[in-house]
């Protein structure tokens, strides 16, 4: 049930926006229409939203008291934090993969290699965002507060990461924000893998005049992810 709920919204976005806007928007490149452009973004969004559940689950456990049982157990708290993240990342990966199954309906063709490449990528994005969620959750006491923080952080992160529109040609302030947004690098990488990663493709990003290659983006995401998971493990260990 939760699974269906989690992929319903992305699919709604994909088909309503995708079909509604495709016909009205110019082709973004010779072979990519708007729905096809949005498809990788929707996958990234699904993974991102789902991985945040790692944090929700920590706050949930606290709210219902179960976290106490975990905190007082003779097990490493850091490993509990990592476990929460990886568990949510696995679910996120499955949900992302379910969205991938809709590729033929959008007219996106995927080779087995593309899919194989996407799996670790989705997992990396999910781990990075999941750790971020756990980090926040260690310092937030109630479900209500966490939901508020999530709304305030998650939607701007999604909207300003290039899920719904190309990041070229946006106003300068927005361009700066999108480049500070770690989600951007995840969404862009997924798009580069699905729609092609040639340096002159219109879907890349430039950072300080440098056009980011696929691997550059992966590196940024990996560094962010590593910092987040270490911070989450540390913060989880020191909470009381």
């Amino acid at each position, binding site marked *: 049930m939760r699974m269906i709920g989690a992929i319903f919204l992305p699919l709604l976005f994909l088909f309503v926006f995708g079909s509604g806007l495709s016909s009205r928007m110019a082709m973004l490149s010779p072979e990519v229409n708007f729905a096809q452009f949005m498809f990788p973004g929707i996958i990234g969004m699904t993974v991102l939203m789902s991985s945040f559940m790692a944090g929700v689950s920590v706050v949930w456990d606290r709210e219902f*008291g179960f976290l106490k*049982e975990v905190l007082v157990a*003779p097990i490493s708290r850091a490993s509990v934090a990592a476990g929460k993240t990886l568990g949510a990342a696995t679910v996120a990966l499955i949900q992302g993969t379910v969205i991938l199954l809709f590729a033929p309906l959008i007219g996106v063709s995927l080779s087995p290699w593309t899919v194989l490449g996407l799996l670790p990528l989705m997992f990396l994005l999910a781990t990075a965002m999941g750790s971020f969620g756990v980090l926040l959750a260690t310092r937030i006491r109630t479900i209500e507060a966490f939901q508020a923080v999530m709304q305030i952080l998650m939607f701007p992160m999604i909207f300003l990461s290039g899920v719904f529109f190309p990041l070229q040609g946006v106003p300068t302030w927005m361009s700066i924000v999108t480049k500070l947004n770690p989600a951007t690098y995840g969404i862009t990488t997924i798009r580069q893998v699905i729609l092609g990663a040639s340096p002159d493709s219109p879907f890349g990003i430039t950072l300080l005049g440098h056009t980011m290659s696929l691997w550059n983006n992966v590196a940024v995401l990996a560094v962010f992810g590593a910092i987040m998971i270490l911070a989450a493990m540390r913060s989880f260990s020191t909470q*009381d």
Partner: protein
Amino acid sequence: MNDYIIKVENLVKRFGQLVAVDNISFTVAPGEIFGFLGPNGAGKTTTINILCTLSKPTSGQAMVNGFDVVRQQRQVRQSIGLVFQDPSLDERLTGLQNLHFHALAYHVPASVRKQRIEQVLRMMELWDKRHSGVRTYSGGMKRRLELARGLLHYPKVLFLDEPTLGLDPQTRNRIWEYILELRQSEGTTIFLTTHYMDEANKADRIAIIDYGKLVAMDTPERLKKIVGKDIISVKTDDDEKAAEEIRLRYQTEARRDSNGLTFEVSSGEKFLPAFIKEFDTKILSVSLRSPSLDDVFLKLTGRAIREEETSDVFKAMARQRGRRMRR
């Protein structure tokens, strides 16, 4: 082996301005049932949280099973079992799954895991319900499952924080049977907090705590000797006049409340017949009882502990209801 399993020295815990635990020291012997008695907010739960490594002391030292609660958290955690004041079960899992998780977390060897889970579930009479989700359990069943879980890894010390708060009397009695049985069979040390007097009576030793300070620590019997005398409660048709007469006749001050007058005399059985015969104010009813821990608390702190009891049960109920609604 040391002659104590818990040792607390000059323990202090401050939350900002508030001194929750104010320089307390005590030791608990292995196999002892040690009770912490005091009103809400006296510092009972704070002390337990420090002893079970959930909270760090501001200053002072505490050792459990020979391990320091700040420096050797892992070893302390492995040595203890806990039943919290608030439920700490994963309601989305079944009873069996909750215990299985606990067994893994506490490194119960795989070879004995199944057998021990069955043992504790049968002991708490939850075996038939093991496959039901915890959310379908009643309050008493949840508490019993928590007790079962607390026992699963054969802890050296079992901490019970208000183990029967808000439960009905039958369930309270049953839980107590289990606790006493456990001490008998496993020699487990039991550290409990309570503000129910009848529960405190079952402890070997009691520490009375008020505003974060230990005000007394001894066996229930010896604590009652602090009050020393027997207590006479009397209802008359004119309490004011009766109080005056008691003062003049017996040189003792009677306390007045809505139930009439109470006062202390040294040997109640002998006093009573004479009292009834010679007292001038008309007596409606009279009763005699030995001092209870309630009286001890009253004597030591000037306040009754019981006044809060009913409101606590309501609070506990409201808390649970709040949780359910939020779900």
